[in-house]
């Protein structure tokens, strides 16, 4: 409402300020197109120079089939690929489901849930580098904060989190969820709030309440958003770098690398950039279908990101 009033208000002033004769009424179409192209040039230049060229260059770097023979025979790569799949499959789904439940929790708009929401969203604003380093130190050695807490509660030494591969991988996934769940909770919360109350009232009259309301009313209405968010998060998680790089740093013995950190080490520590690119490219068979599905969903439903 206020936006519309603001819009109209400003519009009147400008119209009153500029009572000049139309200059470019003639040849309107041509002039407009020229202007539009002029306005688009900066973005197109950025896109060509820093997206299209690197993408083509990357495809060229990873185009040698011999790279993939080498890649698939590397046992570390196989571990990395499995880790990445686990990271995406578990991390994304647990995160989305919890975010969905928590968005319901935050629908209760009492003063303390509002304040809690403000604090809860903090990880989203903090630099990944900083928080993941902090989480790394919580886990590392027998004297990290988690071990200290463990000792305070049970009186015994805690587990060495970054020595066992499953535990280190779990730590990565939990850290990832810690950082990104607030973001998705907020999106689900916005989606829930845009569901009109009338629908719930109608459902109430039809006898749906409690968990039935969740299953038969809320979830069907949110299903589309849920699917789109899951797809988007999957693609992003597939290429996630900072979580694993800082939290487990691949420990123990590079057994918890994911594709992004594996490619990073290949390219910049061992000096095989083409091998690194090939590792990233090996995600394409999974990524392309996800992106196509995502783009189709977005276009079909008119959801804007």
């Amino acid at each position: 409402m206020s936006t519309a009033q603001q819009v109209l208000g400003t519009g009147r002033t400008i119209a009153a300020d500029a009572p000049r004769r139309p200059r470019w009424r003639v040849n309107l179409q041509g002039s407009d197109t020229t202007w539009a192209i002029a306005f688009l040039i900066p973005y197109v230049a950025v896109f060509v120079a820093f997206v299209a060229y690197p993408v083509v260059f990357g495809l060229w770097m990873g185009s040698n089939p011999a790279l993939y023979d080498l890649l698939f025979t590397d046992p570390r790569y196989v571990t990395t690929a499995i880790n990445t799949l686990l990271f995406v499959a578990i991390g994304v789904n647990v995160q989305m489901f919890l975010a969905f439940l928590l968005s319901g929790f935050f629908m209760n708009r009492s003063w303390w849930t509002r304040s809690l929401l403000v604090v809860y969203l903090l990880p989203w604003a903090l630099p990944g580098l900083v928080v993941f380093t902090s989480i790394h130190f919580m886990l590392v050695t027998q004297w990290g904060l988690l071990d200290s807490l463990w000792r305070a509660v049970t009186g015994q030494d805690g587990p060495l989190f970054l020595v066992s591969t499953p535990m280190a991988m779990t730590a990565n996934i939990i850290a990832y969820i810690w950082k990104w769940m607030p973001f998705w909770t907020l999106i689900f919360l916005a989606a829930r709030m845009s569901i009109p109350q009338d629908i719930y009232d109608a459902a109430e009259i039809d006898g749906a309440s409690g968990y039935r309301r969740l299953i038969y009313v809320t979830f069907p209405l949110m299903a589309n958003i849920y699917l789109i968010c899951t797809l988007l998060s999957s693609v992003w998680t597939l290429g996630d770098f900072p979580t694993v790089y800082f939290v487990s740093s691949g420990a123990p013995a590079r057994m918890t690398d994911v594709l992004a950190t594996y490619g990073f080490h290949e390219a910049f520590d061992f000096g095989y950039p083409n091998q690194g690119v090939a590792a990233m490219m090996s995600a394409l068979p999974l990524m392309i279908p996800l992106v196509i599905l995502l783009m189709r969903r977005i276009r079909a439903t008119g959801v804007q990101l």
Partner: protein
Amino acid sequence: MSLAVTPGRPVYRPRYRKRRLLSRAAAIAGGIGLLIWTLLPVYNMILMALDADADEFTGNIFPPDPDFSSFASVWNEDYWLMQHFWHQFANSIYLGVATMVLTVLIGSMASFALSRIRLRMGWIVTDFALLTYVLPTAFLAIPFVHIMHKYGMTDSLWSVVAAMVTFATPYAILILHQYGKLIPMELDEAAKVDGASPLQVYLRIYLPLMAPALVVVGVYALLLAWNEYLYQYLLLSSDRSMTVAVAINQFFDSDEAPWNYMMAIAIIYSLPPIAIYFGLRRFMVAGLTMGGMKG
């Protein structure tokens, strides 16, 4: 019947009271759990920064004798790993602000061309923007570094600005496109009839009316540049161009381990995003809800 008398107010019967209290207690317990879950890593940072003998882990849950000297040391730059701290901090600010300004400028120009002048083939640009937004940035890192060598932009803050603008602009275009739908086209047409050129429409009508969305986009770009690590690490190496994010990671490469200094830097580095979050939270949240995401 009672519903008809007091519409909208739930009717509580005594036997439900116990259940209501229980569910309320459960909600509060969950809330406290959530609070601890969220703040634990943050607390760990403070704990480590306040621990003076931080090269060994002491296993304390509370700081035994809180020591703020690490912050003073960072402030005075009196340790060799942080002797350029304020220069690095200035670099980080420079990087963030340059990204913000360029993203707002390029994004608003592009979205003006796409949604106000309505170029016929504009959807191609929008689709490519969406595709760039969806793709994970780390996958582009290796070829990007090679390209920067070709452009002769290595070890320059502008190479990182270029990367960040590249990744922030698609979001800017999508958000501005969405928000621009709220502004009636009749305004542009009225201005055109009055003789305004598209440039004037852009400067005098589009930009002022889009101001809230421009703030959203600017905050997004600033935080993206501030919180991103990989590209800064790969593209910046000399003392002259290094940012705080890269400097923090240098502590891992050194033989000594003054983790309290490292965490003090990390906390100081987190303050601007925290301040932006608390000050401009409405705009950050609006960026998510305004963009739609409402199916």
